[in-house]
């Protein structure tokens, strides 16, 4: 963390100086400002605000809206809802995990892709569905995945 990051965290902390139970609000602001809530951030907040690190860690691992590491360049959302599951969604997840070498909730080493599993993307008619950033792919087949990844900067 550099001085700029520390300044940002200090600002967030001072804006909640008089809030009762500010942990959740502080963490949400950190998530929006930095895109993730990392170990450095939480340790710094804990030291400055006297909120125990174990409590902050419990919160960020409980709620799905927090990330523990910076997100990749592209975010892959894969549906694990009923309809997609019935039409082979699980196979797509496995194939993506194999090609990228990461599981849901993780980011590739080169920071190109983050894999996230979601419950429903609202287009069950074209299941199984994969969403790359804001582009939706329907009736995805495991054999087509490499092609889709390539259009978004994958090898």
């Amino acid at each position, binding site marked *: 963390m550099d001085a700029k990051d520390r300044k940002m965290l200090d600002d967030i902390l001072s804006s909640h100086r008089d809030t009762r139970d500010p942990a959740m609000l502080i963490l949400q602001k950190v998530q929006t400002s930095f895109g993730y809530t990392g*170990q450095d951030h*939480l340790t710094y907040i804990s030291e400055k605000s006297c909120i*125990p*690190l*174990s*409590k*902050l*860690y*419990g919160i960020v*691992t*409980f709620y799905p809206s927090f990330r*523990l590491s910076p997100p990749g360049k592209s975010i892959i959302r894969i549906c694990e809802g009923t309809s997609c599951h019935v039409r082979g969604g699980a196979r797509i997840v496995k194939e993506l995990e194999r090609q990228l070498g990461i599981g849901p909730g993780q980011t590739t080493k080169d920071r190109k892709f983050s894999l996230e599993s979601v419950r429903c993307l609202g287009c069950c008619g074209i299941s199984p569905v994969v969403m790359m950033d804001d582009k939706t792919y329907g009736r995805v087949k495991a054999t087509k995945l490499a092609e889709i990844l390539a259009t978004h900067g994958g090898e």
Partner: protein
Amino acid sequence: MKPRVAIFDFASCEGCELQIANLEEQVADLVQAVDIVSFREVMKEHSGACDIAFIEGSIQRPMDEERIKKIRANAKVLVALGDCACTGCVNKMRNELPVDDALRAVYGNADVRGNELFDLSQSRAIDEVVNVDFYIRGCPVRKEQVLYYVQRFFGMPPQKNLDLRFGINARGMDDDRRSIVNFDPNKCIMCRRCEVVCNEALDVHAIAVANKGFASIMTTPFDIGMDNNKCISCGQCLVNCPVGAYSEVSEVDKTLKLLEDRSNYVVFVIDPIALTSCMDSLPTDETNFGIVVRKLISALKAMKAKEVVDFTQFTYLSIAAQGEYIQNHRDAAFTSWCPSASTYLEKFYPQYAKFMHKESSPENIMLKVLRKRHEVENLKIVFVTPCIVHKSNGAFDAVLTSRELPRLLATKEMRLDFHPHLGVTFDCDLGMIQKFVSGGVSDYTYSLMILKAAYLSKFKNLDAALTIGSREDFIHELTFDSELGVFNALVIEDMSKLRKYLGEDIAKYNVIEFYPCFRGCLTGGGQCLTTSEDEVNRRRARLKSYKGEMESPYEFVSQLISVYDKVKGGI
């Protein structure tokens, strides 16, 4: 013939049975090892006799009672499955209500009187009606856990669940701070008792609960490990874990190796408090605490220990050393004997760490005295203590807790009954142990402070007045008025209030003491389970039966001073 297993349910949500049904693929492995003769949730056929009966749910009606008694009579082993069966859990909350109110709340005005299906009495756990052999707790039980215990039971190699991320990583920071705590997530039932003790009762916040639902796990923030975190090694997570998921890193093997090497001069230092809890597990039928201690001394000698030394005398010498220190330094001094307390100061209040006088701690005095007495190269010191925190002290060659001592004796199949006790005493008698063996912090801590104050007054032959006040529950304030000036002492027995008092001006106190364990070393982090109030009282009574009442602390202090002077002069 394969063992016959039956699964029965009483008043419950059937969630625990569902967990077994959910084992799916692994059930196939189990079925090869056992015959499931009754399992209502997945099969129709039932038969009576079985070797092992798993019981889910609690007992509500006379007909349930009849049924469970029949099952008990037919089963060789009975296992209570889940919290309803183990404790009564949610079902038992109904006992607060009159039966009629409970029936009306659920069935409205329907007339259910005289129907035996609705004949409710008090809700009871299984062991309130029949004998239970084993308990598997949890609401619901975790399927991995059921599998783990069942595999252990049938002698199959237990299969570690790889989906469970390894929880608490307890590696130490360097060689000096050896890792001391193990955590097995396969045993953890997520009762969160360790978290509550660590975070609320002790205000230490070393343990976190990560994730949610079935993926939740006890861990340290970012998996950084206990020592790198705020852990003070007090061991309260160990003595409060109901299923033994936490355990100390055992040093039994290490001790055996020390004893095997004949060139070693092995000295056992025993804190008698450690023996009060493990007396029930020691291999003897003797019930007199004093005789057990003496028989243990003989047994350890038979295991080739060269000397067995009592730890108490060093705690008394520490009082003398601290008394001297307090007179020369009028700043606030932290005089807790507990190493966890000094770790707490280092981690939470580094600015106060300089007020901790480690030189005067009983362990340091003990090491100095023993090294001086035995100027041999191969002096090996094994410390038997009620607390795991000493394991992080590299100065000892091995540290055994109350739980490990019986294991050490078991490895050599020692029976204490065959060893003599008449005329057996501790070695290295400095001239005061025969009267007052008591160990570390055995009772309410402020009784210790009285002794310390008595020491202060006697040291200079002063007339002094001691007043004992109480600021609130478990916070004691002692004032000691003498020609030397006024000494103020603060004793904190409740760690959750510590921050409040350390935050204010501590300069007005000369002495501050605090201990993480609620009844001092009687509930220390290395004691045997459990640490209920009754059990603690029993331990206290044992100690008392051995040491007897101290008639006059002042008389004792004059004896102590002469010994202390001798020790300082070099023994």
